[in-house]
């Protein structure tokens, strides 16, 4: 009997939290219209969310592309088709690694800082203070950060994929001696803009939405103690990574044709 009520309690808590999360998202989206006249708020958040993430994304993309180039070459050279190296690198980056890796890195780099910032604002009662002054924190604080994350992630994913392809190019053509022209012409032959590139962009847009939502909600819903903030920050990384990986499967299954 005891464990039944335990199960019920955790179930109720789960759905309560889910409902709060959805209401939160609804009000953030509703409050976003007031953002139209205040581009400066968005600009500042784009800086801290997007610009400051650029370095890690660029370096990660470069190295992922280079590793793909090395590993792919080892396998392809056995079949005498090392010209397909570019296709392999480009397809895996554009479709999967670009959006997914960027979203995970984004959660670790930008999502945590969003959660900690909002969580601390709540803990130090800055959010309640704003409410006292009739400033809606959802509009003033959350909405700009949400849209900054939403806009930044697809751009970052694009940078990741493009830099990664060039990383694969440096290793494949520069280091291992794959033919320069074949590398690019094979890519252009086999990578379809709508089926591959556009689907990757759609994925990263969905991931941007989810990553920003989770990070901000975890911060907003944190238990207002220092322990609560630290837990919320951890949860942001874990939940975003899981959500992104799960959604990636669903999206790939939907786009698979």
């Amino acid at each position, binding site marked *: 009997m005891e464990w039944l009520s335990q199960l019920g309690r955790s179930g109720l808590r789960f759905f309560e939290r889910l409902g709060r999360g959805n209401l939160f998202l609804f009000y953030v989206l509703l409050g976003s219209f007031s953002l139209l006249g205040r581009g400066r708020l968005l600009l500042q958040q*784009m800086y801290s969310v*997007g610009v400051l993430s650029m370095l890690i994304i660029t370096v990660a993309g470069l190295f992922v592309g280079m590793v793909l180039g090395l590993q792919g070459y080892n396998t392809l050279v056995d079949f005498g088709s090392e010209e397909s190296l570019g296709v392999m690198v480009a397809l895996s980056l554009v479709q999967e690694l670009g959006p997914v890796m960027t979203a995970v890195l984004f959660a670790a780099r930008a999502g945590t800082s969003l959660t900690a910032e909002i969580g601390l604002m709540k803990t130090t009662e800055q959010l309640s203070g704003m409410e006292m002054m009739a400033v809606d924190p959802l509009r003033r604080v959350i909405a700009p950060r949400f849209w900054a994350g939403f806009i930044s992630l697809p751009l*970052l994913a694009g940078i990741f994929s493009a830099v990664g392809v060039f990383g694969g190019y440096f290793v494949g053509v520069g280091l291992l001696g794959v033919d320069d022209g074949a590398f690019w012409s094979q890519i252009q032959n086999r990578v379809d803009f709508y089926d591959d*590139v556009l689907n990757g962009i759609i994925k990263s847009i969905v991931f941007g939405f989810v990553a920003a939502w989770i990070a901000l909600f975890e911060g907003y819903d944190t238990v207002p103690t220092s322990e609560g903030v630290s837990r919320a920050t951890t949860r942001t990384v874990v939940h975003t990574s899981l959500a992104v990986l799960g959604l990636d499967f669903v999206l790939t299954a939907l786009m698979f044709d």
Partner: protein
Amino acid sequence: MFHSKAIEIAVGVFVAAGLGALFILAIKVSNLSAFSDEAGYPLQARFDNIGGLKVQAPVTMAGVRIGRVDKISFDDETFEAVVTLKVYDQYDQLPKDTSASIFTSGLLGEQYVSLEAGGDMDNLQPNDQFMITQSALVLEEMIGQFLFKAAEGGTE
């Protein structure tokens, strides 16, 4: 926080880099530039079997790409595949008795349409049909025929 001008510039660089990367992906890393909707005129070819031919597959003549497959449909009266080819406008001097065949690039590669010029003095006009076509070779059919022949030969 930084000076706000610096932030503006940094965000501008970020957005430009992101859009630039997406642009590179579109132009350099995909086939978007390959079919940037070059103007062409349609020609129709009827095949008994098109094998694995797909829309966007290249149309070549003497190995040079001169167009692409625009549309593939099925005629349920003659039970033939109707393939609409789009040949680029600059190649408008194909003889009327040009023949179209479906070949495979390499042993397991993609399938494409290859045109072979005939000797007619008149040229193909837009929406004309090829008179001579050769269907795709389906590997299983070939193996089947080969086995059949081998079995026949064995009993003699």
